[in-house]
């Protein structure tokens, strides 16, 4: 039973590098939170501070009702899965699983029962006598997960645990982790640079950049209502298209314009964009919200096809509109199209995003 609370958490390395800046975060008991961001954004440092592997410069970390700022890792009742598995190479799988419990002087019979249960959950029974070197990457990561669950800790921490696995195995392990969390609901913090992992695993997603939290929200919130241009561009694959446009209101209709582009936006957008009349803003449109062909009136433009990526189930188009590259997803796979073609691209009404050019914050009515 442990919630985690970070307040005004800071980490300086020397006087020059400020890795984590004023991070505030409340993680509820049994919640699964994914920390995501580009490399060097401070997400791993934050996790290591929760684990106690990294000193904190200022701020507070609570696990349950204890402030753990200066507690050594072994007293925090946590378990951690590392990117490179971090199994004890000189011990058998069984001894790896037993290590933590033996340190707590748990009776061997209890240890055996706990390992049996974990091995059953993760399908490790055949591997118990082997050494980590004799296991594949996926098996090693399952042992690492097993080592966490036998200890039955209050908090699970995951530090990019799937990064070393190949794509197929990664998808499998993702499901395995999800299943595990359903079976043994434990407060979990999962660090990844892969937004797909973050979105699929997290009850909530925390997006970080340059040591600061950019947005905290459910996957649907961060996708649908990004807190700024960075989040909008980071979440979603392929990434959101951004176009620098100018707002023009004429005769009661509001349009946004760029070279080769004039989109007449609906009522709600018009209200939000009213203060920006005549000024530049950044327009964002997700590739999956663009389609080929003439869509709703005043919401389409011509683009020049540069690259055609046939995925079998759909086509990804890289097109050019003036100085902007525009990606179009979800083009039916059977569409006959070649690079060099001129296509008509339409925007789904109500699916546009606008950001202030200065603050990069969303413009909402």
């Amino acid at each position, binding site marked *: 039973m442990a919630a985690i609370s970070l307040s005004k958490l800071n980490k300086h390395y020397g006087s020059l590098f400020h890795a984590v800046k004023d991070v505030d975060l409340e993680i509820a008991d049994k919640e699964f939170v994914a920390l995501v961001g580009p490399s060097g954004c401070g997400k791993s440092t934050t996790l290591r501070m929760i684990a106690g592997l990294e000193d904190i410069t200022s701020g507070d970390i609570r696990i349950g009702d204890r402030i753990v700022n200066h507690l050594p890792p*072994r007293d925090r009742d946590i378990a951690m899965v*590392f990117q*490179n598995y971090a199994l*004890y190479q*000189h011990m058998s799988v069984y001894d790896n699983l037993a290590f933590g419990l033996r340190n707590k002087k748990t009776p061997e019979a209890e240890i055996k029962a706990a390992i049996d249960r974990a091995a059953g959950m993760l399908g490790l029974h055949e591997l118990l006598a082997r050494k980590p070197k004799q296991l594949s990457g996926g098996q090693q990561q399952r042992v690492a997960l097993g080592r966490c669950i036998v200890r039955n800790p209050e908090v699970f921490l995951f530090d990019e645990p799937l990064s070393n696995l190949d794509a197929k195995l990664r998808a499998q392990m993702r499901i395995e982790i999800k299943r595990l969390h359903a079976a043994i609901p434990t407060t979990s913090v999962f660090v990844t640079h892969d937004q797909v992992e973050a979105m699929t695993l997290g009850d909530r997603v925390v997006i970080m950049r340059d040591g600061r939290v950019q947005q905290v929200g459910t996957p649907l919130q961060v996708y649908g209502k990004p807190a700024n241009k960075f989040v909008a561009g980071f979440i979603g694959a392929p990434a959101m298209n951004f176009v620098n446009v100018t707002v023009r209101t004429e005769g009661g209709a509001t349009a946004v314009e760029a070279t080769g582009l004039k989109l007449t936006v609906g009522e709600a957008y018009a209200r939000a964009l009213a203060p920006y009349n005549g000024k530049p803003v950044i327009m964002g449109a997700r590739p999956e919200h663009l389609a080929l062909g003439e869509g709703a009136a005043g919401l389409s433009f011509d683009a020049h096809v540069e690259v055609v990526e046939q995925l079998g189930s759909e086509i990804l188009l890289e097109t050019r509109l003036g100085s902007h590259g525009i990606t179009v997803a979800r083009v039916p796979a059977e569409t006959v199209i070649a690079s060099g073609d001129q296509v008509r691209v339409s925007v789904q009404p109500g699916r546009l995003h606008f950001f202030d050019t200065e603050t990069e914050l969303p413009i909402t009515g």
Partner: protein
Amino acid sequence: MPIVTRPHFLPGLPQWSRKTLFALALFGICFAFAFPVLWLILTSLRPESGVYYVHRGTEFTLGSFAEVLSDDRIVSAFLNSALISTLATVFSLLVTVSSGYMLSRFTGPASRIWFGTIYVFRCVPYISWVLPLYFVTQSWGIYDTYTGLLLPHVAVHICFFSWLMKGFFDGIDPSMEYAAMIDGCTRWGAFIRVAVPSALPAISALAVLCWLFTWNEFLFALILTGNRVPMITVVMAQFVTEMGLRWNLMAATAVMALVPAFLIALFGQKYVIRGLRI
């Protein structure tokens, strides 16, 4: 894609003659290394009258070995060398392993200063340590004692081998130790129970190197010891007397001194190779 084959040496020759040449070359190189040892063994088996005609006579004897072994000074030199080598290995490993670990894992000023110190001492030629060490051991009153020989050896090992040990630990993933710390170990506990066992091949390799280094060492033994703690390498050289050279005795002693070193090198070889590969 074109298949690229490595060009053979002497491409004009047929394969069997290439193989023969290769075998001869190998044999030649091995012989060049083995010849002094063979000559030494042969000399040790010849009676005193035959040492200058090792290759001619047919008379062999174990008398030189018996004579050498009946000399208390030589026997105690063997024991001393074995004892000092073993103690130096144990003590220097105790320090070297933890110092290598510190150099690898900690980046604070203490680590940098330690690294700098070792570096400076490594750059100083080995021979220029000896004279100051002689004065130091004299003034501390440990000249010609076990301590007086052990301390310099341990110091040299630490300077020479901490670097190697740092390299080994650099190759071991630190997250294993983090996992141990989360699993209930202290920093020391993680070092002793996880890092050290993982470095065991490297530590064994280092033990072999340390032991051989001390066993074969001559300069410290010559300058820092006298009659109370004779070392085998020095005793061996003392067959050069005013009355002439006792080649047969010197050879017999040398052969006996070779045996432990040879055995350790032979059985330690796989650890050395595995350890140095980490």
